[in-house]
């Protein structure tokens, strides 16, 4: 075992030894309550959580006699935020390679890589996102040597060792420029790689224990991982931005009808919204891209999400690859677009859903979390203002009914340097 892995194992043991916090039955009253399913906020709302799950939320919910209510004092109470497609748990510091597990370009595997194996629940980015009200995330993709970017994991951001909610929740593939770069330099090669890989997976599914033909390109591990994709048991997340690449993705189902597709990015999705909607394929869209940063994003506009939604596409926000805690700011910007002539945004209610129930549903987990409807996880956030507004912040965060610590490296530094001048001892003694 390398020193690196030894350290990880030790860290894991440390986490495991901490007594797991118990889910707390609770009732939050007097809230400006957002259910998160696209319905408007409810004044004077109550949410009741038992055994880690929401049992009731709304106006006029009877307060169970055995629970001492937490009075929200009229503050906003929402479900925890869900951010799909992030590198949370894979990275401590992006530019410090040793700390960054988001790339495996030298590995002989691609589709077979299982991201869940690397998730570090104690990584600071998780603690910082949690303090921003993010409670669940989908983690992918990996940088790999092939077009397949590994099997993504759904995690919760609780301060406990059990981060992975669902491993191997989806497979991720890059079409477009990023895919072309690893497939051999052309989109033509991307499509050939994809077809070949899915064909090899089909063949392996027919004879799982048998010998494979001698001209296969995939390792057995990768081909085996793709069986779930080609049979539709595991969703395939397809990164595509250019309108033509999106069409290429949608057309894959002519050849592989069982594919369960989700589009990621979809910068030019507004140009093909009708086709995406007709195909019933959901989209995890990067929210505010409005520059032609590459030749596959020439049509970029902040109105992309609003136009797709208006065109009947099921769309959530994600894949922004900076800090997940920016999700509310991005959602708020889409609300702002409603007042810009010619632009198209989302209503406040739909914008909030696009960072809560929307991504949860696209992940296939809408019954488990993402809203405060009865039966969902007790992922609850209390805010000190409108959660989409810039000056607001999360003040209490619960995951599965367990109140979460909001302290992290940043908050500790803030307290130490509240006043920069040193006192009678150096700052190092102030902790």
């Amino acid at each position, binding site marked *: 075992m390398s020193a690196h892995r030894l350290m990880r194992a030790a860290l894991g043991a440390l986490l495991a030894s901490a007594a797991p916090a118990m889910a707390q039955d609770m009732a939050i009253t007097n809230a400006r309550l957002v259910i998160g399913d696209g319905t408007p906020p409810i004044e004077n709302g109550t949410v009741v959580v038992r055994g880690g799950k929401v049992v009731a939320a709304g106006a006029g919910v009877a307060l169970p006699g055995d629970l001492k209510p937490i009075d929200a004092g009229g503050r906003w109470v929402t479900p925890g935020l869900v951010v799909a497609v992030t590198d949370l748990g894979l990275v401590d510091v992006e*530019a410090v390679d040793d700390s960054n597990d988001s790339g495996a370009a030298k590995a002989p595997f691609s589709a077979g890589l299982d991201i869940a194996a690397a998730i570090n629940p104690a990584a600071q980015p998780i603690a910082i996102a949690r303090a921003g009200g993010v409670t669940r995330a989908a983690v992918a993709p990996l940088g790999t040597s092939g077009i397949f970017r590994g099997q993504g994991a759904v995690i919760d951001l609780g301060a406990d060792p059990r981060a992975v909610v669902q491993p191997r929740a989806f497979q991720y593939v890059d079409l477009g420029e990023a895919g072309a770069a690893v497939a051999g330099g052309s989109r033509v090669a991307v499509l050939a790689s994809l077809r070949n890989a899915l064909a090899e997976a089909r063949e392996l599914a027919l004879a799982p224990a048998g010998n494979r033909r001698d001209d296969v390109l995939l390792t057995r591990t990768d081909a085996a991982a793709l069986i779930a994709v080609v049979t539709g048991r595991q969703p395939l997340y397809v990164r595509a931005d250019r309108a033509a690449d999106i069409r290429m993705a949608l057309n894959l189902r002519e050849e592989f009808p069982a594919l369960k597709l989700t589009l990621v990015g979809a910068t030019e999705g507004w140009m093909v919204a009708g086709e995406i909607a007709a195909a019933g394929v959901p989209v995890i869209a990067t929210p505010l891209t409005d520059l*032609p940063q590459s030749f596959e994003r020439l049509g970029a506009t902040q109105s992309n999400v609003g136009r797709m939604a208006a065109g009947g596409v099921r769309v959530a926000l994600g894949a922004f690859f900076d800090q997940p805690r920016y999700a509310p700011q991005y959602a708020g910007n889409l609300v702002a677009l409603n007042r810009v002539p010619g632009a198209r945004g989302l209503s406040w209610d739909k914008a909030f859903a696009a960072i809560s129930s929307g991504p949860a549903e696209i992940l296939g987990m809408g019954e488990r979390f993402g809203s405060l409807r009865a039966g969902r996880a007790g992922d609850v956030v209390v805010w000190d*203002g409108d959660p989409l507004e810039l*000056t607001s912040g999360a003040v209490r965060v619960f995951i599965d009914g367990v109140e979460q610590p909001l302290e992290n490296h940043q908050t500790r*530094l803030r307290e130490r340097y509240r006043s*920069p001048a040193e006192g009678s001892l150096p700052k190092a003694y102030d902790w």
Partner: protein
Amino acid sequence: MRGFRAVLCGAALVLTAAAPGIARDKKEPGAAAKAATQFNKDPYPSTYRPYPGQPVLITGATIYDGKGGRIEGGALLLRDGKVAAVGASAAGFDVPGDALRIDGSGKFVTPGIIDIHSHLGDYPSPAVEAHSDGNEMTDPITPNVWAEHSVWPQDPGFSRALANGGVTALQILPGSGNLMGGRGVTLKNVPARTVQGMKFPGAPYSLKMACGENPKRVYGEKGRMPSTRMGNFAVNRETWIKAQEYRRKRDEGKLETRDLKMETLAGVLDGEILIQNHCYRADEMALVLDMAKEAGYKVTTFHHAVESYKIGDLLRANEVCSAIWADWWGFKMEAYDAIPENAGILHKAGACVVIHSDDENGIQRLNQEAAKAQGDARRMGIEIPDAEVIRWLTANPARAMGIDALTGSLEPGKMGDVVLWNGNPLSVYSRPEKVWVDGALLFDANDRKRRPVSDFELGQPGEGDVK
């Protein structure tokens, strides 16, 4: 405007770099020395002229003047390209009959937003290799390169910064791969066929320097110095010693040839060229301040100064601004101690705060960055009024760029660089409705043709879209 140009640019054309000290030597400098000292300091002069504008009277708006003032239901008059009057009402304003009258009820007015740290044009969209013109990473010391020579005026990013960010002036800096990356240039955010047509008349030049990880990584990987932080300092100090020697020879009339690197550094030592220093860590900033004292120059602003909050007292005492993001964090080792309360703690310490972007997306939302920093400050008990926060995007960057006598606040006589917002600019729900540069209306959300579309975008998907 023309009068102003004659004073500020004309002066640069005529004056020579030679200081009066030449006379000490009692010898007339030879022809070679003349060529080395008496050169045109403005060889790529601004050709920018304000576009025609109609006088504008805005009434009933909330006005943030950029210098910490706030007027409810206030009035602003733009005339002849300038701010002509600001007040609680238009009573007493000399309003021309042809003035466009705008009811500003429910709307907000600020000075044009200023970004002190942009790479638009040098790293334009599309971000293809052929466009990568921001870092001359062939030598750690390149004060001879000028960012303006890389600016592609057709970068679509300029229009997004105008329409979504209300940005009216911005400083384009070379990247941070080098210790001394080259000269920065300040632009008016006005579309033009040439970079000269964008150059901010009268703005001083700057020199971009960089601390820390980037230069030592770039050159360490090439197997040359610097490969460590101490190497960074050694190369810088040796260079400053050469610059002092160059300047001494210049003043003695003993220079024989021109040296573009040394001309820039001598300009810094003369106080004509401002130092804009990329530096993340507090301990490194403190070392740079001592290096500046040792070499005899002043640091105007530390950029990306994520650890400024640890040394607010030192920065205040040295009158150095911190140009910062609201809450970028952790993307590299030297950003690991970034905190979202950086601006708030600095403000409380009485140090100068500037919100910057360094990003073609962030420049569209500088107002939002400032609001986030304000909220994070409030949560730790530091209340900063809205009007004070607006200063971080207007008067403070103007000061740090040496253009505060011209723009950055709404005072009579200043350039008519103004944004009319459709709500409080510190709210996520607000956007620019109209943007004027020198009194010319260059963006209007209500007029789809009053929006710049770069050459690159013509005939492409989304041409002229709202973006």
